[in-house]
């Protein structure tokens, strides 16, 4: 059994993976494409937090909200300006565009923000004690906000009219449109929420790690693995997949050192081999 500190780190890492993976899978479930630029939106969000909170001295929570909204709006711009016009040409063109955006955003970040690593100070310095366990306030904040956001997302999707419209549009866009659900608005809304989640994850993670133009790759890969484990298409699957990877990642680092990342991939390949449709996916006929 790993010590409680490792459990706490697993919880933090899981929170981040879950936020990023659920944004990715939300967009996938409505649009049918994987937004490979999702990790880069996370990276841009981290830079926003750096400039607003660490450099301009704006209040952390205000910065967090602005980051989420800004990244969400950027996502909507991508969806409206690039992905939607390409949608009639099949699945591949929009996917290629999201891959192109990876390079585009990397270039923008390197040119304008610089390639060197940047540190973001802690938003809530100090430590708290929970029983015998001493945890930094920063980590508690990450977990608390992530849980609050996920609960909020759950209520939005399952208990509001908007959420109903989203689920309907995910299941059958055509029939949903007959019942007055505007496909265009649902697409934008989903993209906004999905990308805002990446922005929130970036804002939470920036004080714990560093910021540079290449930090988007690992979260993207872990989120992709999480949604593959979860079965591509259900937010619940992304949550379970994210938690599985977050905890297994930290536990394995504790036991295996640097080889742990590899072990996580092996788990995923094993899941795919024995249950190709993922844990929550529907089996093929």
């Amino acid at each position, binding site marked *: 059994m790993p010590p409680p500190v490792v459990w706490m780190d697993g919880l933090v890492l899981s929170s981040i993976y879950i936020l990023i993976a659920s944004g990715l899978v939300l967009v996938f479930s409505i649009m049918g494409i994987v937004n490979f630029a999702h990790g880069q939106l996370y990276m841009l969000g981290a830079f926003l937090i750096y400039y607003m909170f660490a450099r301009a001295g704006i209040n952390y929570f205000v910065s967090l909200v602005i980051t989420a909204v800004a990244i969400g709006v950027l996502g909507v711009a991508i969806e409206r300006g690039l992905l939607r016009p390409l949608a009639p040409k099949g699945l591949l063109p929009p996917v290629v565009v999201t891959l192109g955006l990876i390079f585009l955003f990397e270039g923008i970040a390197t040119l304008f923000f610089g390639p060197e690593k940047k540190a973001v100070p802690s938003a809530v310095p100090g430590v708290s004690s929970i029983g015998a366990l001493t945890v930094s306030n920063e980590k508690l904040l990450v977990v608390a906000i992530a849980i609050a956001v996920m609960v909020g997302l759950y209520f939005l999707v399952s208990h509001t009219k908007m959420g109903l419209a989203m689920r309907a549009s995910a299941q059958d866009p055509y029939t949903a449109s007959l019942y007055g659900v505007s496909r265009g608005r649902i697409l934008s809304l989903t993209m906004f929420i999905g990308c805002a989640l990446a922005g929130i994850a970036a804002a939470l993670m920036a004080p714990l790690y560093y910021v540079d133009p290449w930090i988007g790759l690992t979260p993207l890969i872990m989120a992709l693995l999480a949604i593959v484990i979860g079965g591509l298409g259900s937010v619940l699957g992304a949550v379970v997949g994210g938690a599985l990877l977050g905890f297994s990642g930290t536990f394995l680092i504790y036991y295996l050192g640097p080889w742990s990342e590899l072990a996580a991939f092996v788990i995923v390949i094993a899941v795919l081999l024995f249950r190709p449709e993922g844990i929550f996916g529907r089996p*093929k006929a």
Partner: protein
Amino acid sequence: MKKVIPPAVGLVLALCFPLVTTDPFILSLLIEAGVWAIAVMGFVAILRTGEFSLGQAAFMAIGGYASALVTINLGIPFWFGLVFAGIMAALVALALGVVVLRLGGIYFAIVTLVFGEIVRIVALNWQGLTRGATGLTPSAPGTIHIGSITIDFIASKVPFYYVIVLLVLVAAVVFWRADRSRLGRIFRSIASNETLAEHMGIHLMKYKVIIFVIAGFFTGIAGAFFCHFTLFMGPTTFDVWDSIMILIMGIVGGTSSVVLGPIIGALVLSAGGAYLTSALMVGMKPLVYGIIVIVVVVLLPGGLVDLGRYISRAPRISSLQGVKRHKKRGN
């Protein structure tokens, strides 16, 4: 016979190029472009069966390490190193393909992308074999004496240039023949309608694995050649970013042909990209690449190879057409 003339002219031009200039910088640009051209041909050949591989650079890395390791540790000559690299990459492609091509579609894209990361992590952490981040320093091919002629790979870039021209030629002939033969018809059938192809007796896995392995073989050789050319092989020599670059070159060049599009894409982007990194600020290259691929997808879906037809207003064939729209089977 008419169809043989343009490629023959291209080959003659390529062979005569060192007569125009032997400037090491320019030759290096072309040599690198040749390396990428081989990898891009592999990517495009796979894409033309309807599968989207985001891990092609991983096969370059496997080939690079395979050749670097056997040439350094066992003293095997460069030439056998190349072949060994191709075989190793092909074997890994076989193992990966058998597992992952079953899933297909977006799963295949994701797992191949992740596979690139796996290779990087193994290379970084298997210190005893790969020397981790320090990397390996494979050497250039030994000097060859044929009678009174001496071919020295260290004094000049020209011998490397001719080797890569030869490798590109061999890869091009293989991919072209595969596309022209019955295999090509089968690949097009699979890309166009998997369910139908399967019901007409085509074993989907067999043919998808075949092209994945062939692509892996040549991509591994390209990676091996590159590391002997630059004299370095490390975990980030070929990583996920390079896999995405291969994809961008393929799309920009155009995927309606297996050979011409990849060569054009690699020449334009690899040589142009090297210019961007040498002449301008860091970060300019990815920015420009990103913009180029988006512009091509939006405005010129057939890629650069389609530019001529576009200008002459002849009917266009979208290079992205024919790739399956929905992968889910069964209802």
